[in-house]
């Protein structure tokens, strides 16, 4: 079965990576955008090969937060979608350490 049109897809504008204070390399991420509607079918996301866990949506539809169990690799791209559609690549790419790494707003 083919995909629905893009008009139903959530759109990502940027993301903030937040290292967990007491994590074992765990990192939280706040993703901002539009069109994140709470549905029966859950929202899924992955950064590179790593699945974003514990996703909670904002009721205003402007994003979600999630947890990465380990520090991403440089160049890992965020993919987002609902469980009944293919995850779509977004413009958010993790860039590693330094000023472009954790704590940076990545668009």
């Amino acid at each position, binding site marked *: *079965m083919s995909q629905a049109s893009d008009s139903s897809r959530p759109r990502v504008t940027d993301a903030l990576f937040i290292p967990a204070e007491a994590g074992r390399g765990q990192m939280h991420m706040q993703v901002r955008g539009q069109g994140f509607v709470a549905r029966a079918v859950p929202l899924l996301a992955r950064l590179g090969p790593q*699945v974003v866990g*514990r996703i*909670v949506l904002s009721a205003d539809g402007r994003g979600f937060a999630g*947890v990465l169990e380990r520090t991403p690799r440089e160049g890992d791209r965020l993919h987002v979608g609902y469980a009944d559609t293919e995850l779509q690549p977004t413009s958010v790419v993790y860039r590693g350490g330094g*000023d472009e790494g954790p704590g940076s*707003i990545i668009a």
Partner: protein
Amino acid sequence: MVTRVRSPQRLFDGIVHGHLAAGSASLEHGEDGRWEVVATPCSAAPMHHVRHGDLVIQRALGEGRLASTRVVGEDIAAEQLFGPEGFVRRDTLILRRADRSPGPESSRLASDALDDEGGVELRLESEVEMAFATHPEAGDAAEAAATPVHCFELSIHRSMDVTVDGAVSTPIPATATTPPRHAIGTATRFRSIAGLDTNFPTEATSTANPREFLATTRGRMLLDTGHFRVDPGDATRFQVRIRGLLCHPARAPGSDQLPSGTQRLPVVVLVHGNHTAVTFAISPTAGPRRTLGSGPTAVTLIPGRATILHEVFSYRGYRYLQEHLARLGIVSVSLDTNAANETGSLIRFRADLVLELLDHLRSLDSDPASPLHGRLDLANVGLVGHSRGGDAVAMAADLNRGRSSATKYGVRAVVAIAPTDFTGMLAPSSRLRMRSDRTASFLCVYGSHDGDVSGRFDPADLSQGWGFVGTGFRHYDRASTQRAMVFIHGATHNRFNTVWIDPAAHAAGSGARALAEAQADNGVDAPTVDPRLSPSSTFPLPAGRRDGRVLSAAAHQTLARELVGGWLALWLLGAFTEQRRFIGDQSNSLGVPVGLQWKLGRAIRGVDNFDDSAPGTNVLGGATTSPPFVAERLIEISDLPHVPHNDRVLEAGPASGPVRAYRTEIPAGKRDWTHFTALTFRVAKRFPDLSSPAIISAASFPPTLQITLVSGPQRASVDQSVIGPLNPRTVRPYHRLMGSSDLTKVHLQTWQVPLSRFTGSGGVPLSSIEAVEITFGAAAGEPIHLDTLTLVRI
């Protein structure tokens, strides 16, 4: 102290006029001994509480007139004891012999504890009880509508674990030949305050300063806003709010009291699904700030505290159904699971909330100060879930099974409306299955125009693995208790909940509000289902017109009342006539086409479900013989597009060769079929082309079959010319596009063939059926699927 009265007339008058208390007065009735009051005049005693052999005093109203006594089931039928509004007639008092041994009501749970697997027989109810049970029919709707109902909100906090199971944290890595797959993450259970921070991601809310964010966690936000609270007895732990809308029959219009009497009323818990819930406002609080990064790109996190900007009260969206249930004599609570929605829960948290609510209701039933004291029949419980709530009530029934007998509830019905199926692709032992040790019955209601649990699946993206969210069809496939599934043509997902389609219930400017305005399940559907547009029956749908097949919100409510209410009346009130809705003998009041699957009856004997690993035998142990063009096959959507099942069936192609029929032998000891009234089976055919409604309408349908019963040299056959008219409500597939996704579903439907069609002149004796033969009329490229060959006594 018991007051014993010898005159039926005196007993009646004493109770009616308040001289005698129903609970402490009894009738001395000759050699029959002492009789206790079980239902008083005008009370809401459910009809199924009346038993064969109960004594009825009917008072000829007026001074100086007499009272008569009759025996239920011998001199008078139970339905004659109730007025059109469903309450006990005002001239009627019902008694039961004090030393009577437990009747069918108390024994029925045990009698239900048999599944249809392995060919064992399953009994619905005692014949006597089911023979006289009825409940208000459509013609009584006006009277039923006049029955007073009272609804009120309840809210308490209870100590319970929160389970976070929504995480997708255990991916199965990709290999050289397979893409990565996901699995439901390991559930985390906790009730500590600290867990509210550690089990949720940090959420960063923008401020006017782009380098500053207000930070907190979702768990902490729920604590801030009253969904959780600090446990008054242990400051390191939290409690969870149990909130809901309770509706019950009322004594009189405007009354908040239950109808007078002592009868316990069945209890139903309703559970909504995942939906936009709480819009939080975050404000800064004192506390250490945290800086991420350095230099001009550094970001500062400021501790935040949440308040509620807006909340969608999804649990209030089934009041129309609750009021209907109350008029039937059922107490219901629609449970608030917004906390589960806000924590991303898939199933478990919701299921735990169901049992916590039931525990609270039990405490109310035990509390002499409660208006519900002694009035809740917690051995007669129904669980109704919508969307993720459908999965949740199935899990709640499963969790209830594991409880001790002292804390277990008598779940008589699980009803799943447009349920998700999150467990259907997990290891078989992890899949939720509605067996008779979980619930006496299971009903699934699902719409062909569902735009959320749509069954959409992209075979090119198996990387989603578990994310392949199934539909109610899979729940039905796995069930083995008494069951039915109604696939409603034109029904959507959200329209079963009135709040979900109410723009005013949603925050201004939100995407959820926009969907509510169009009463749509998603943005793709919105331009084609919006009731503000003119309907069209043209395909392709012209721009600016809505699909005229999509049912209105009012129609969804009517069908929910009839189907969900009917099922609950059948299983909680013993309204046996309601069974007709689910076996194709009665249409819904709107005449809406539905695809039916069912396995119901006072007695059931499975012949074959084609699920075993030994295809050479049926579940009775008899041998099967298949011609080359018939074979058992697993049908699932990843294998056969448009097939919503996940089940093994018998698949037949065009007949060829000398042997034309599939044959299944009935072993000795199972050949007496006189106890049954019909042979049933599920059947479907493949459609080579589903690309338009016109093409579907023009295709050959329904599939053609011939059934032959064999008894020694005698044979009796029934072909399609008979079977077709016996199952006139069989429906063709509903053509369904969502954007460019073709979601048309080709599903099995249950047919019945009365065994009387095989008897009579030239027929076979039902006392010695040795084999069943099935001849298929499949055309090339259009195989026929058949499953669940079953004997039933309807």
